[in-house]
């Protein structure tokens, strides 16, 4: 028997074993790739906010859950828009007509700032994005492990305030600083606003003089053993990467794929919720960010991604709308199908007056691009934030949205190498 024949026979035997193992393997019912339940190699905090004038800041929590020293490469993305005719003025689609000089447009921003740090054995860290962390807790004092581990690096504050944007952290190898196949990171973000009541200017718009909401960072798991090849291009899903099982392509998926559909339960804008302890009117903001990012060339994604919405109310009546997202979108639900700002909101399919029921459910599907190289999925991730307005003022609550499946095409995150 030749050596080649030996390989083929061995492979056949392997396939037979796999078939046997596969048929005997328990049925695992958990088809999503991204997660807010488990630790991961990539963490995405989709919404950060800091505005000292309003007493607002975001507290980031980031933890290494493993017993090994871990390095993290993080990217703040500043998505502030600026007036086309007053570049120093920050604007949004809602306030462009009031803050920009006449004739100005609000140009969406996409400016990244990156930093690196190490986390020791099971070490948690927390910092405010307005201040950063100039010195890490174990920078000069060793941790408890053997051998003792130290923190390296520091965390800069965000470079512009007011700040609206996102944070992406990637677990990298301690020595090479290249992405690894370990999944040890978890995180949360807490957006806090505080000011002196009763007028609360600046500060939280409520009688307590404080408001807080919190969400889990969204994790993208690395696939074990797949961090070779092109280290600055992170293939999120991709050809045959269904549920993390991949084939032997030359450029295979290295991380599990982004979800095919996002599902979220929400109140329709303007819903008046009467409880046993009071009543409030609810409006919701949706934050959508693409799975793909190009930190290498510091450019926003190319063509905008179209996001399709299917909306059901409590009568099982179905509505739909769509919008587009280029690099970051924070929008009130009612603004998805009407002009930004209050005018027209009452006519939105997200208005309680149109839907007739207080709550609904939405299914979000981004439209994939042409399948040229298998990495144009235009996958998206999101969180939802509600503002409840009652006699006591405004209070907010955030929640993670849910996921369904993953798609055949993948996305790519391109990063600069050390």
């Amino acid at each position: 028997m030749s050596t080649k024949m030996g390989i083929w026979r061995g492979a056949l035997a392997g396939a037979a074993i796999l078939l046997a193992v596969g048929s005997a393997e328990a049925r695992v019912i958990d088809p999503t790739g991204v997660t807010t339940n488990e630790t991961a190699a990539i963490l995405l905090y989709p919404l950060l906010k800091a505005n000292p004038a309003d007493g607002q800041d975001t507290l980031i929590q980031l933890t290494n859950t493993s017993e090994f020293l871990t390095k993290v490469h993080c990217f703040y993305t500043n998505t502030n828009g600026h007036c086309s005719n007053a570049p120093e003025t920050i604007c949004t689609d809602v306030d462009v007509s009031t803050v920009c000089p006449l004739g100005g447009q609000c140009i969406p921003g996409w400016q990244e700032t990156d930093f690196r740090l190490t986390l020791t054995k099971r070490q948690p860290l927390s910092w405010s994005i307005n201040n950063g962390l100039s010195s890490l807790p174990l920078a000069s004092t060793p941790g408890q492990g053997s051998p003792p581990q130290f923190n390296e690096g520091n965390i800069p504050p965000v470079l512009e305030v007011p700040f609206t944007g996102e944070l992406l952290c990637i677990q990298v190898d301690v020595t090479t600083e290249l992405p690894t196949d370990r999944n040890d990171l978890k995180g949360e973000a807490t957006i806090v606003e505080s000011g002196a009541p009763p007028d609360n200017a600046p500060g939280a718009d409520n009688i307590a003089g404080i408001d807080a909401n919190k969400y889990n960072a969204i994790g993208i798991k690395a696939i074990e053993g797949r961090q070779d090849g092109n280290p600055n291009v992170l293939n999120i899903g991709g050809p045959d990467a269904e549920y993390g099982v991949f084939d032997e392509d030359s450029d295979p998926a290295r991380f599990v794929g982004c979800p095919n559909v996002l599902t979220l339960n929400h109140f329709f804008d303007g819903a008046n919720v009467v409880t046993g302890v009071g009543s409030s009117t609810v409006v919701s903001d949706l934050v959508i960010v693409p799975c793909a990012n190009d930190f290498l060339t510091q450019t926003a994604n190319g063509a905008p991604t179209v996001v399709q919405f299917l909306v059901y109310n409590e009568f099982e009546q179905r509505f739909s709308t769509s919008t587009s997202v280029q690099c970051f979108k924070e929008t009130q639900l009612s603004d998805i199908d009407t002009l930004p700002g209050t005018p027209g909101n009452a006519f939105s399919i997200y208005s309680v007056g149109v839907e007739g029921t207080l709550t609904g459910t939405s299914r979000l599907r981004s439209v994939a691009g042409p399948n040229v190289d298998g990495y144009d999925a235009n996958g998206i991730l999101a969180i939802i934030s509600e503002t409840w307005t009652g006699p006591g003022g405004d209070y907010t609550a955030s929640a993670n949205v849910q996921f369904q499946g993953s798609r055949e095409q993948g996305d790519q995150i391109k990063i600069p190498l050390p």
Partner: protein
Amino acid sequence: MSKALGMRCVWGLCGVLVSVLALASVTRAEVSTDVSGSVLVFPKVVFAGGNDTVIEITNTSNNMVHAHCFYVNGAPDSRGNPLWQVTDFSIWLTKQQPTHWVVSAGRQVNPADSFGTDGAGLDPGAVPPVVPGFTGELKCVQVDASGTPFGGNNLKGEAVITSASGDVSKHNAVAILANPDLAGGDPANQLLLDNTPEHDGEYNSCANQLYLDHFVDGTPDPVVQEFNEGACTDGQCPIRTYLTLVPCTQDFENQLPAEVTVQFAIVNEMEQVFSASTTVDCWLTTQLSSIDAPTGHCSEGVGAACTSDEQCIGLSQGFCNRNSVFSVGTLGTGSAFTRISPVDLDGGVIGVAEEYHYVDSGASARAAWNLQQTGNRYDATADLPGGPVVDAITLPENF
């Protein structure tokens, strides 16, 4: 063995290894807040202390879905033990239908509900209100039209806890996914949480360990300190974390509350490790620092003994500070990472956390979030003497 034969064996083995390596995956099988499931657990539902809860549930499928829901009242009785009173009801949801109700009011079937009001929409069935003082959980099990558990994995949900001040916090319901091939197996009223990557079972096993990132108890809120200094005199703007845990095992047929002892391993930002433990009897909600320090002293005034912040706030004596391993005085850093593990052959637990951000007036804002997890209880105990641990939810039999 000849050299040629040896080489054939080596190359053959390589072929096997290549094939095996090609099956690498990251499949998981625990409970989840990321996807819809067949059992929804809302760990924290309250209508007490000036709080009320709004429940949202959605059928994520294109088919009619039935669910059998159970309120479990874990409020303490006169001796301080959980009541463990169970009230159940059924709901029906049409294709992709969302529904909601306020637990203090429930939801009546009234087709005449006005457009845009609380009861508008296809009523999912009669949902009873909870009693005043209710603190406990809501559990909904997907069933078929006959009431037999059904592994469709079509339910998702959220809970919003509202307070009299208008403050709100929101968390996702925890979904236990079913193995559609085996869910509803004999005995149909007993749901075994024993499905794992290593074992073909009915429903996914609960997590082996829960992960909780939290600000250490009593640490001054850095945002209040920086932007609202007048509301944080002498650091009196603490952050408190409340943890709610429910056992995965529940016997609604025999009204037997489950008991799980859990260990807490706490790591601060200096990588220093501390530990504590407590027992979850039916339902537990506790301030973290109360786990190992039931009493404390008010931070201002004469330092009166206290068991809650409300006592000290009511006396205008600051907040109730405790000597706990969760307290800032012990941990010494702003945040910590806690692993929560059931001991020995105890079953799993499901949890949610809620954070209170105080200002010195005693007013607060809350934020809730879901815990993270690792492993599963079944596989983790499979090799232990007496293992594996199989959590079970036992429903009342039809009669």
